[in-house]
């Protein structure tokens, strides 16, 4: 049961480097919030300030309406899972998990019960007598999670817990974290640089860059309505195609002109532009690779394939237009004949198009979304 509130939180290091700038966020009880961003964006620093491992330079952090700025980590009722597991190497798995309980002088029987329960949930019962060095990476991370969950903390912090695991194990553990979250049902703050983890795990995602919050929203919101160019390019894989284009207003409708094509901005987006009375201007246009479709010959935009990345269920085509703009196109393989697949090799020329409703329009100067 915990609400975490960060108000104007700032972190300035001794060498005057500002790691986190004016961070404001209200995390509801039992919410799963993911901080995501490239390395050096301040996400881990923010998490460590919540944990009490970093001093807060300015602002306040509250857990359940209590300001915790000056509380020691042990007095905040939080637990944390580290990227490098941070298991105690001289203790067995059992003692590692029991460590927080022992420090709280929990009776022996209760320790046994709780450790057994956690081990059962995480499937590590058979390893309880082993030392961490005798475990694989995935097992070690389970032990670390066990140690964190055993005392039912108010807030569960995870600092890139899956980054050291191989891709297959990462997918498996991601699913397990979703299940775990349902079982322990507490407030989670999860830090990652992997947008897939952010999208799949988070109730809300906080996207950060250079110490600033770029956008806070649900996975749908940040994917469908990115506030700015950074979020648009960061979320989604392969990343969104962005290029310069012109927004024009003709006959009562907005159009985007790019690569010699003129595409109507229809649907909600068109309506909103009209409502905002946006003035025609040069813009940065964003289109996700999956929203680009193959067009008939002599229609749409002409592209030449440079690289073909066969992913199995889809092909990522790295293409280039006549004016040397790079575009990535994602083509599902399921509808393609073998001949069509074979055709899509480097040097192949084809035409593409996209619909007005999937376009994202950004201001050239501020890089903010034109649709407010």
């Amino acid at each position, binding site marked *: 049961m915990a609400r975490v509130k960060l108000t104007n939180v700032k972190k300035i290091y001794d060498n005057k480097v500002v790691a986190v700038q004016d961070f404001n966020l209200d995390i509801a009880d039992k919410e799963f919030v993911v901080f995501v961003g490239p390395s050096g964006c301040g996400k881990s620093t923010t998490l460590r300030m919540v944990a009490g491992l970093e001093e807060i330079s300015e602002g306040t952090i509250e857990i359940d309406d209590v300001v915790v700025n000056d509380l*020691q980590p*042990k007095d905040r009722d939080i637990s*944390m899972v*580290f990227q490098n597991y*941070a*298991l105690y190497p001289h203790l067995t798995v059992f003692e590692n998990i029991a460590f*927080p309980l022992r420090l709280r002088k929990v009776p022996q029987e209760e320790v046994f019960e709780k450790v057994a329960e956690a081990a059962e949930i995480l499937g590590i019962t058979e390893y309880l007598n082993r030392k*961490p060095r005798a475990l694989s990476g995935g097992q070690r991370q389970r032990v670390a999670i066990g140690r964190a969950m055993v005392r039912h903390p108010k807030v569960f912090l995870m600092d890139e817990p899956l980054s050291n695991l191989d891709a297959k194990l990462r997918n498996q553990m991601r699913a397990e974290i979703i299940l775990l979250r349902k079982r322990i049902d507490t407030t989670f703050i999860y830090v990652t640089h992997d947008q897939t983890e952010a999208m799949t795990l988070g109730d809300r995602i906080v996207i950060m860059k250079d110490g600033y919050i770029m956008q806070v929203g649900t996975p749908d919101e940040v994917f469908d309505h990115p506030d700015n160019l950074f979020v648009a390019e960061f979320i989604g894989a392969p990343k969104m195609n962005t290029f310069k284009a012109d927004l024009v207003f003709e006959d009562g409708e907005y159009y985007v002109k790019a690569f010699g094509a003129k595409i109507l901005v229809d649907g909600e987006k068109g309506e909103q532009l009209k409502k905002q009375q946006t003035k025609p201007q040069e813009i940065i246009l964003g289109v996700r690779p999956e929203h680009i479709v193959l067009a008939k010959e002599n229609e749409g935009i002409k592209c030449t394939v440079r690289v073909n990345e066969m992913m199995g269920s889809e092909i990522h085509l790295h293409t280039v237009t006549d004016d040397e703009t790079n575009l990535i196109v994602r083509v599902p393989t399921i509808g393609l004949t073998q001949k069509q697949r074979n055709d899509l090799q480097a040097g192949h020329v084809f035409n593409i198009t996209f619909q007005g409703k999937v376009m994202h329009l950004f201001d050239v100067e501020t890089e903010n979304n034109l649709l407010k």
Partner: protein
Amino acid sequence: MTKKHMGQKLKNRLSNGFIYAILIVVSVIWLFPFFCLVCESFRCESSHQVGYILPRQWGFDNYINLFTKTAFLTWYKNTFIIAVFVSVIQTLMVLTMSYTLSRLRFKGRKGLMNIMLVLGMFPGFITMIVLYKILSGMGLTGANSVPGLILVYTASSAMGYYVSKGFFDTVSRSLDEAARIDGATRFQVLTKIIMPLSKPIIIYTILTAFMGPWGDFMFAKYIAHNTTSGMNVAVGLQNLISTPSSLTANYTMFCAGGVLVAVPITILFMSLQRYYVEGVTGGAVKG
């Protein structure tokens, strides 16, 4: 087995044999003086230095005389008390100092480390006269030199933090952080996490802290100042042979004392040496 394999095997044997030969020679050179000392200590036919090694008459006379005719037991007790106190106090100080410098960041940390480095470059005995004056003023010389010496040996012990700080630095900081989040205080982090992981370095600290005062002569001599009851073994034994006539009379007894001085150190080393090589840090963090 091919010829090539045979050749390799022979080569390995030869090189091993060579290494063992060198080791044997080195150990003989090292052990020979101690062997002579032990032989001298059991010699009963004469008490002065002689030109041969093996005694003509073996016996415990020298040992018995040492305990009955001199204050050896008092010296031994003094030394033991000093060494035990110093090893406990010094180990605690070194470990807490090393942990502080390794883990905490505070104003003046670098400066403090530099000052200690520079101070450590001065030999300890340059402060001898001043220390004597201070201890004398406190009444901690002569017969009271045991507490005086404990004070002298432990006073600057925190300055010997280098080796253990270096070791603590290799223990991942995320272990500290994990323990602090799990509910440990800084002190508990030291005792429950860092210390169990640093056994070899703690043993090293205890051993060096014990051996320093155990074998010290200069300070002990100066502070005991010819008072028999305040001497440690080194000073007391030297006192036995300090004049040419006493050297002739007490030489074999002096050797018996030398053997007894080596006993506790040998036991201490043998019982603690296995921790020296024991490494326990595997699997803590992703390597």
